[in-house]
Structure formats: structure tokens, C-alpha cells
């Protein structure tokens, strides 16, 4: 039987036939970890199918094999999958399944299937017990105060973490399998009654519509379902923090979790969500507001400072105070390159050090920062390749970029910065203003799951005062404008 037909078929009542079919589909002759363990219960043959390493041996031996052996002589006839699950097996979570493809998919994820001779259904047992990283501190979204746990690669653990932070019966975690060839399990998490039904439907529809053969984690899911895949800035929020994901869920957003993705995706979002950090909600409102203002300044500096520098020094020297102009001219006196080349060299070196520092082993990474910042910078200045003032500009720009909590958003801003630099170098302040205008209109045209990216500022929406700035907690009574309650409030 061809593989496709075998997959679409259902189990027969003949155990040998079923075992042979599954053996063939699992390439059991070659696959060392595909296990078929024969058993006998009440004189009826059984076979446990599982993948070694994916299924927990202890669970199998304690609650399946021992349970069957203890009842080997007891009469449990007529024996079928339902009886087996009800009267014999001691596993809490199990289900009957007759479709071969579904059985194999579950077995591949670590569940075990018990085939029964004379029965056209298999009992699928929750025996997943593959090795996984323990819940640990977050690595990319560090906070000074607040929870320190981060998501891990196991979907089940991540769902549990989320449930722990949102202990509500309203929390729904819908599992959807995406990928036509190799399935990837995605969990759609939202609070029923809080999240807007239309938004939940839109996410569900988009996730189900993914027809890629393989989907490697949430990164691919994000690219396949976001509103404007050509836009530079992300329209979904990535977070590796369960507390932040929980906060999104409680605000009425939809959170996506997936197998092998140690982070969550939240949508819909606005530009301002990308500037939030978990510290904000733990700190007093004054501190939270202040930190957000710092981040907004960081974002603006990161995008515009080098472009403005090149525009002012190349085209509008008259707009600089005379003493500053003198310092710049003096510092650049021996530099052989035009300012644009100087900036591009520095920006490129900065990204190079950044990228190398990220990829290098942790022990060397910190040394690299010192080498890059001190030795290379000092040498470049001594060799008159770049001017010292440019190092200050690039360093402030880099700091501004690092103040942005979202990694993807930060990279998008770096590309925007290059655009502003190009415009400033070509057209001076006129170019910088033009670039700013184009970016503003582009942002205004973007949407995240149908929600305008710059809401609640444009379009103006009545909102919880915790989006742009963070006002006192007792004033944060209004629900988010994209949640079901928020929409009702607007209506």
C-alpha cells in the first residue's frame, strides 16, 4: 500500500496487520528508537508503540506494563481500547484513536499507542517525557525587579507557566497543528470574554490557513500570519517572559505558543507595546513613566541622530553653534573620508562587534566588547580613520537602540536608521524630514490584526492610560481598546 494511502487508512482489527503497517510507516527496521512492545492481557495480544526517548520509560513501565501484567490473568473481556483505558491502564490522560496518521503524529510527539488485537482503535496514552530545559532565568529580556522566569522549548511547560500566571477558568489554550509535512503544534491562548472574538477568529483563521510544508517555530508562524510581511517593523510582540505574556492575555490580546519556541507571540499590538518592559508594571507609576520616556527618546535617537549629524555637518553648518562646529572641524581635520563613509564604517563596525559578540561563547563575548570599544575605537581615532565625535554619536545611537526592549523592533529601527542616514547624506535636513514623513505615514498605514499600529494616538481611541505613558494604577480602569470590553465601552 502506498504511504499516502496507508496514512489515510484506519486501523484494522488484526493486530499483526496494524503492527506491520505502523512498522513500515515508522521505518522500524532502520529507526532504532521506534519501539513495539508486545503484551498479553486476558489472553489477548496487545502491542505498545512508542518512540524511545520521547516517551517516558518510567511512566510506561509503572502505569502501562505493570498495570497490564498485574491484570494479566483477570478477565476483562471483551477487551477493546475503551475497556483498556477505563479498567486497566493507570494513565490519567488517554484517548481512543483509529486513524493511522493521527496515531503516528501523536506517537512522534512522545505519546504511546496501545494496539489491541481484534479492536480497530488504539489507546493513545500521555507518556511524553523527553528531555527538556528546565524553567530558567530569561536571557534577553532582563528586568531589575519582577519575575525572572522565562519560557522554555516545551510547549506543555510554557502553557503551564502561562496558566500559573493567569489562574483563571476563562483562559483558553487551543492547540492547532500547522505544517502539512512535519507538524508543529501551536497553542492559541486567550481569555474568553476578555479577548475580542473577531480578533481570536482572525488569528485562528490565519494559523489554520498556513499551508507551508514545515513550520519551524513561532518565527515562521509570525511571518506567515502578520498583516504586512513587507513592513520593517514587527506587528507582533515576541516575549520570553511568562509574566509579560500573561499581562497581554489579561489585556485581551491573543498569545501564541509553539513547540520548540522559548518565547510567546502576542497580538494585536501597537508601536507603544514594543516600548513596554516588564519592569514598568512592577515599578511605581512615576518610575514606569520616566523609563518609558527614556525608551521613547532612545528610539528617536537611535533612528535620527546619525542622519541629523550627517545632515548638519555636511549641509547645514550654520545651524551648529560656532564652538561645536569648531570642535567638529578640528576633530575631522585629519580624517581622509567624507562623513558618510565615516558613519558607515562606524555603523558597520558597531553591527559587526554586536553580531560577533552575540554569536561568540559567553566567556569571549565580554572580552570582545572591550576589544571593540576600546582598542579598535582608540586605534581608529589614532589612525585618523574616524573622528572622536563620531564615536560619541555612534555610541549614543547604539545605547538608544539597546534601550528598546524588543529585539526584532530594534533591528527594524536599525534599518530605518540607515534609510535616514542615506536621506540625510543625499539631501540634508530636507532629506531627514522627508524620511521622517515617509516613516510616519508608513507607520500610520500599518495594522496588527486589523488594529492600527499607532492607535490609540492615531486614530484616537479612549484607552487605558498604560500604553504611551504609565499613569497611576488606580487610573487604569478602562480596558484596552482592542479587547472585547474596550470595544463595548467605545460603542
Amino acid at each position, binding site marked *: 500500500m502506498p504511504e499516502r494511502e496507508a496514512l489515510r487508512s484506519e486501523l484494522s482489527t488484526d493486530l499483526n496487520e496494524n503492527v506491520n503497517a505502523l512498522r513500515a510507516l515508522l521505518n522500524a527496521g532502520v529507526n532504532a528508537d521506534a519501539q513495539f512492545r508486545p503484551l498479553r492481557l486476558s489472553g489477548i495480544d496487545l502491542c505498545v508503540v512508542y518512540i524511545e526517548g520521547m516517551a517516558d520509560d518510567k511512566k510506561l513501565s509503572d502505569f502501562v506494563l505493570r498495570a497490564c501484567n498485574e491484570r494479566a490473568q483477570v478477565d476483562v473481556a471483551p477487551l477493546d481500547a475503551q475497556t483498556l483505558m477505563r479498567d486497566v491502564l493507570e494513565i490519567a490522560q488517554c484517548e481512543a484513536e483509529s486513524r493511522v496518521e493521527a496515531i503516528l503524529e501523536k506517537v512522534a510527539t512522545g505519546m504511546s499507542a496501545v494496539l489491541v488485537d481484534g479492536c480497530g482503535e488504539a489507546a493513545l496514552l500521555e507518556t511524553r517525557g523527553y528531555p527538556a530545559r528546565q524553567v530558567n532565568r530569561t536571557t534577553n529580556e532582563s528586568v531589575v525587579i519582577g519575575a525572572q522566569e522565562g519560557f522554555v522549548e516545551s510547549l506543555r511547560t510554557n502553557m503551564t507557566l502561562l496558566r500559573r500566571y493567569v489562574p483563571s477558568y476563562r483562559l483558553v489554550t487551543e492547540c492547532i497543528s500547522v505544517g502539512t509535512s512535519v507538524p508543529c503544534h501551536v497553542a492559541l491562548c486567550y481569555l474568553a470574554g476578555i479577548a475580542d472574538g473577531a480578533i481570536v477568529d482572525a488569528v485562528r483563521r490565519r494559523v489554520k490557513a498556513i499551508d507551508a510544508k514545515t513550520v519551524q517555530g513561532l518565527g515562521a508562524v509570525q511571518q506567515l500570519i502578520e498583516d504586512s510581511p513587507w513592513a520593517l517593523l514587527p506587528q507582533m510582540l515576541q516575549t520570553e517572559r511568562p509574566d509579560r505574556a500573561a499581562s497581554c492575555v489579561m489585556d485581551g490580546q491573543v498569545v501564541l505558543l509553539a513547540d520548540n519556541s522559548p518565547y510567546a507571540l502576542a497580538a494585536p499590538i501597537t508601536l507603544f507595546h514594543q516600548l513596554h518592559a516588564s519592569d514598568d508594571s512592577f515599578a511605581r507609576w512615576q518610575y514606569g513613566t520616566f523609563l518609558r520616556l527614556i525608551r521613547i527618546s532612545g528610539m528617536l535617537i537611535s533612528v535620527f541622530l546619525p542622519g541629523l549629524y550627517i545632515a548638519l555637518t555636511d549641509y547645514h553648518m550654520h*545651524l551648529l553653534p560656532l564652538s561645536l562646529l569648531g570642535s567638529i572641524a578640528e576633530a575631522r581635520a585629519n580624517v581622509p573620508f567624507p562623513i558618510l563613509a565615516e558613519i558607515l564604517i562606524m555603523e558597520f563596525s558597531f553591527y559587526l562587534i554586536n553580531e560577533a559578540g552575540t554569536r561568540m561563547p559567553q566567556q569571549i563575548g565580554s572580552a570582545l566588547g572591550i576589544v571593540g570599544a576600546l582598542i579598535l575605537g582608540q586605534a581608529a581615532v589614532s589612525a585618523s580613520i574616524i573622528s572622536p565625535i563620531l564615536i560619541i554619536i555612534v555610541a549614543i545611537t547604539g545605547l538608544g537602540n539597546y534601550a528598546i526592549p524588543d529585539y526584532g523592533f530594534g533591528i527594524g529601527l536599525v534599518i530605518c536608521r540607515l534609510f535616514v542616514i542615506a536621506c540625510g547624506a543625499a539631501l540634508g535636513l530636507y532629506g531627514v524630514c522627508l524620511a521622517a514623513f515617509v516613516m510616519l505615514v508608513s507607520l500610520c498605514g500599518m495594522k496588527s490584526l486589523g488594529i492600527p499600529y499607532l492607535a490609540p494616538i492615531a486614530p484616537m481611541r479612549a484607552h487605558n492610560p498604560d500604553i504611551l505613558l504609565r499613569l497611576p494604577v488606580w487610573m487604569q480602569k478602562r480596558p484596552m481598546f482592542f479587547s472585547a470590553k474596550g470595544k463595548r465601552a467605545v460603542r
Partner: protein
Amino acid sequence: MTLLISHRPARAAALAAVAARLFQGLVVDAPTTQNGAWLSALIGGMLAAPWMFVISKYRPRGALFIAPLGLYALVDSACVLAAVTRSAGYLALDRSASLVLLIPAGLAALWCMWRNGDAVGYAAMIWTRIAPALLLGVALLQWRYFRPEWLRPVLGAGWPSIIEGGVRCAGWIVAAFAIMALPEDEECVSSFLPVLLGAGIAAGLTLLQFMLVPTQLGGGWLNRLDALLCNGRTPLYLQLPMIVLWFAGLFHLLACELFAASACLQRLLTKLDGKLCALLAVAEAIALSRVGVLSAYGIALSRWGFAAIGTTTLLSMLAGKKGGKIPCAKSD
């Protein structure tokens, strides 16, 4: 692609555009700037307000109304485009060919129109919130240099000149307000508020400018631009916010007028794609702004523009009694 805009973003775009167009017209375009110019802005607002109310309420759809409105918006956008490139040239790029300066502004406007009307309108909405902060910065940086006594004589060259300026202002308002004739959503509260508010803002800005530079200076277009951007009394480095205000205001105005022109073109030639209409409008605006005499005639044109659009609106309304108009749904 259909070029569409909702009511609220259109209102914001109209407000930003009216204020910027009047300020540009009164302070830089007008050949003889007199102290009474701010009164002209207010009179222009009052003259245009009833017509704009009618346009925003009845939004006539006939070619008799749409064609002249679109054409007028296009011609005015060419004037604005010329002002943008001359400003860029004046500031630093005087050695660049004007086409080199025109094309980036045209491309930027085209990109913005391709994001559709709501994006243009919402950008204007944000601009209306940023601009006051920048303006406050300008005022704080230059507060020592304001001379209220320069506002005298208040009436400048007298009422005839003020009224003539008022009619001109009404013409500029018509072009900047054209975008308000486009929304097709149900929420279309007929409003002349953007006109009056825009005129009021322009009048206020004109007053501030006149306190920095005496109006009797006269001179050509570039002299007036020089007086605006580098007025010679404040240190030059304090002028940066003013330059940003000027450019950003003009870009919003340009996008608003070009969008109105493109959308009118698409309503006339319904089979044309919106992106193509926008491209055509930008190309025409660039071509028109290359005509050297346009800026000189821009002043005269604005007076006739008001009369022409007023007449076509009236005629369209009369025709509308036979079923040609689309009344707005009442908004709650």
C-alpha cells in the same frame, strides 16, 4: 486599489493642510506682506467656511464638481511642491538641479498615497499633536527676540488689502480642504471647524512671525523664506525647530492635496487603479511645478479658484436636487 479616506483622518488632514497652506501663502507666497495678513486669514476662513460646510455635508459626486476640485488641488499641490523644493534649495541644496529636489518629494508623496488616505490622514493627526510642541520650542527659543510693537499698524495697508488677502486665503483653503469632499463612510459630520481652526492657527502663526520680522522688508520669495527660516535676529542654531516645522507642514500639505487630486481623478475615471492615479497626479504636479510662471500666478489663481469651486459647488447642489448628490448619514 481604491483611494479612500475616512472622515476623521480627512478632518485631521484638512486641518493640518489649511493651517500650513494659509501660513505659506501669507508669509512666503504673498508678494506684499502686510501687518493685516493675519486678519486676511480669519476673513478667508469665514468666507470659505460656508462653502466647505456645504462640501463636507453634501459631498457632491458629479464630474461638474469633482473635475474642477481635483484640478485645482493638483495645481495648488504643484505650487506647494515648488515651495518645498525652493526651500530645500535655499537651505543648502542651491547647486542641485530642481528636478533632483522635486523627485524625492514626489516619490515620498507617491509612497504615502499608496499607503492610502487613512495613513495620510492619521499622519496629519499625529502632526497636529507634535507641531504645537515644536512651536512651543520655537517660541521659547526665540522669546527674547519677539517685538510686539512691530505688529503696528494693526491693519497694515488697510481693509481693501486685507479683504483682497482674505479672498486669496479662501482660495487656498478650498485646495487644502478638498480632501474633506472624499470620505464615503457613514460617519460624516459636516464640519467647517477645520477651516476656522486652521485659519485661526495660521493667523496666530502669522502674528508670531510678524513679531520676529518687520513686514515692511518686502523682497522676493526667497527673501521672505529667509526672513521666516533665518530671520537674522536669533542665532541660526535656534532655527532648527522652525525648519522642521516648515518642511513637515509642507509635506503634509503636499500629501493631502495630491491625495485629493488623485482621488478626484479616480472618481472621474473609475476604471483607473488608485496607484496609477497617484502616479499620474505626482507626475503632473512635478511637471506643473517645473513651469516657472506657476508660482507667480499661484497668487492670482487662488482668488479665481475660490470663485470657480464655489460656483461649481452651487451648480452641483442645484443638479443634486435632481438626484445627483449623496447626503450624509446622520452620525450619532
